[in-house]
């Protein structure tokens, strides 16, 4: 599976298919430096401390707390609704909230927060991060209240 199945526009990266293949199997991979043991999420191919590519993939902790969130009512063009050509018609969109969860150990994970009432969300709520494959074949990350 290509990295493009996760990223909208970027397909070439050193951490590509290992990360996306893991998402398909329901795992969220970060990386760990083989020399100093520092862990990274988002995963990266080099350790900026050791300047080495001695990186291994590791599953990141999945439980944590909601650090912040929003819902984008005015989306960028790639998620926008084509303008309706029907006179007097209105098209409105109910956006899916997005947020950031700090998982145990301190790594931060951004993801969608589907099926949750925006007004019910609170910073600090206990959350879980999960890999999810969408109907269109894209893989992504979702955040769910525990």
């Amino acid at each position, binding site marked *: 599976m290509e990295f493009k199945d*996760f*990223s*909208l*526009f*970027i397909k070439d*990266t050193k951490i590509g298919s290992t990360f996306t293949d893991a998402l398909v199997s329901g795992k969220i991979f970060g990386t760990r430096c083989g020399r100093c043991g520092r862990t990274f999420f*988002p995963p990266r191919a080099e350790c900026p401390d050791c300047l080495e590519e001695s990186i291994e993939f590791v599953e990141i902790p999945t439980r944590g707390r909601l*650090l*912040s*969130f*929003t*819902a*984008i*009512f*005015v*989306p*960028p*063009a*790639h*998620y*926008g609704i084509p303008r309706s050509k029907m006179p007097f018609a209105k098209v409105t969109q109910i*956006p899916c*909230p*997005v*947020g*950031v969860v700090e998982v145990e150990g301190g790594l*931060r*994970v*951004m*993801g*969608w927060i589907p099926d949750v009432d*925006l007004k019910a969300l*609170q*910073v*600090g709520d206990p959350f879980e991060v999960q890999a999810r494959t969408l109907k269109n074949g894209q893989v*992504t990350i979702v955040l769910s209240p525990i």
Partner: protein
Amino acid sequence: MKHKVAIVGAGQGRFGVREDASQRELAFEAVAAALKDAGTTLKDVDSMVTAVAADEFSFALQPSAQMHDYLEFFPKANFRVEGACASGSMALRVGWMTVASGLADVVLVLGAEKMTEVSTSQATEIMGKGGDAIWEYPFGMTFPGFYAMVARAHMAAFGTTEEQLAMVAVKNHFYGSQNPLAHMPKEITLEKALNSFMVAYPLKLYDCSLITDGAAAVILASEERARDFAKSPVWIEGIGTATDTMRIADRDALHTLRATVEAAKKAYRLAGIGPEEVDVATVHDCFTIAEICAYEDLGFCPKGEGGAFIEDRQTYIGGKIPVNVDGGLKSKGHPVGATGVAMAVEIMKQLRGECGSRQVPGAEVGLTHNVGGSGQVVGVTIYKKD
């Protein structure tokens, strides 16, 4: 610092949706205004620095060359400096370095952006790419989205309210309505701001700055040349730049712009003053929450009290520290590459007492605060009256 650096001329064209002018024509307006303010011409200028944030708005691969060409500044030095929405302050920093190092005596710093050649949704798309292209962009994050997360974090930590956010917009529109060069020079009510449509929860339309065309320019001079111009100089006393993570998610605290804190520390140290000595400031109110964070991160009020600070009208003229009495990015407008330079123009004119109904009486020390992106790079500059 090896040599002192003065601002001897400042100019800004009208900000707005400028369908009447191209980017190079906007640049010309600002440069001509700055040169006339200094009572000089380009013949007297040794070197030039140009700030443009993005090529995508103006469909130009070499926008600074196009503007430089239109000014006929050749063969003297000019190149582009980029630091997202802080490009203007970064160009000012490079201009300052050019003079402070002794490389040139008189330097033109230009900032310009023509943003409305593209549609609003395209502009939102372009600005959204200011996030992490791989790790944030797939989640539909936009610029308002990043600051919405800052706002939610600030509200959760300190009890800041949507009303307090809206009060920033009301203030900036109040002063913007008195600025003839502002993009949206009209007052708004608290109700109007609170009832405007949601852009990125909890930020509404009036929490967001404008997509603007515009340009601004300042002329810098060495101590030896500073008094050769039409009016009294204003001195750059302190300058600081700092950076932070690309992804806001990676920051220790989402409600603080660490780059602001660090850049301000450097600028205050260089100027030998503290925040309580600042008489007037322009801060980066790309969103209302950003202005509240700036009050705190620049030391104008304690951390967490920014909401109460605007509610108590402490940033109006007559309050503790008047902020964005030019209308700010919110009402004056935010042509990204021009913004940092336009802030310097405002402070220059405030310290010379030229701001009419929105003049801060007796202002002697000014500060500009300019944020690139969602805090990836920040420039803070401190100015003193001659």
